[in-house]
């Protein structure tokens, strides 16, 4: 069953602008992760934020997590054409050593040169 739901479904911005993508989920989680997928390829892990963290940075990426609202946002600053891809949030409920990720449907980001 899908738990993460991303918003918007598609986003088109100009190079140099910031891109903000949101993810909402339904149940309590241990951590939330963001992945990126270039067209026709597999997913690549971007960043993980734990339930006791509120914000995390990695290069041009900034992720926030609000467990009271069950939501997360991914901000890409100073976007580049190479950031064009689909972005997925994934939630981990940590039901044990064999816990699974539940992925959202993804956001398609287009960055115009």
């Amino acid at each position: 069953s899908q738990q993460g739901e991303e918003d918007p479904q598609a986003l088109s911005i100009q190079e140099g602008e910031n891109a903000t993508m949101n993810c909402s989920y339904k149940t309590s989680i241990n951590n939330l992760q963001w992945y990126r997928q270039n067209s026709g390829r597999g997913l690549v892990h971007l960043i993980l934020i734990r339930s006791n963290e509120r914000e995390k940075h990695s290069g041009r990426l900034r992720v926030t997590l609000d467990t009271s609202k069950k939501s997360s946002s991914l901000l890409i600053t100073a976007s580049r054409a190479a950031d064009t891809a689909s972005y997925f949030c994934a939630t981990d409920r940590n039901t044990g050593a064999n816990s699974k990720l539940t992925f959202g449907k993804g956001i398609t980001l287009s960055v115009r040169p």
Partner: protein
Amino acid sequence: DVKVTQSSRYLVKRTGEKVFLECVQDMDHENMFWYRQDPGLGLRLIYFSYDVKMKEKGDIPEGYSVSREKKERFSLILESASTNQTSMYLCASRTKIFGKNIQYFGAGTRLSVL
């Protein structure tokens, strides 16, 4: 770097054929996963394996089976392919070490069933 290799990027099969999708990882990961990805539906988990010879059904296991005889290899089997199994199939692996629950994906296999 972790490498997850899927044996084929593109496959075309006929209805009723038995299809094998192979996935190999080189990082001694205990957990391996098979997903299918369809437009508008995102990633859906078909099966996963938490160790050799161990498997568990995911959200959409119907029409599929899996095999994990060796730790590095996880195979997805379509016993009798049908047109509604045309999709992108993604394999992933992950270590069981606590706090290291990031999944590493292969490049995907785009399967067309005619």
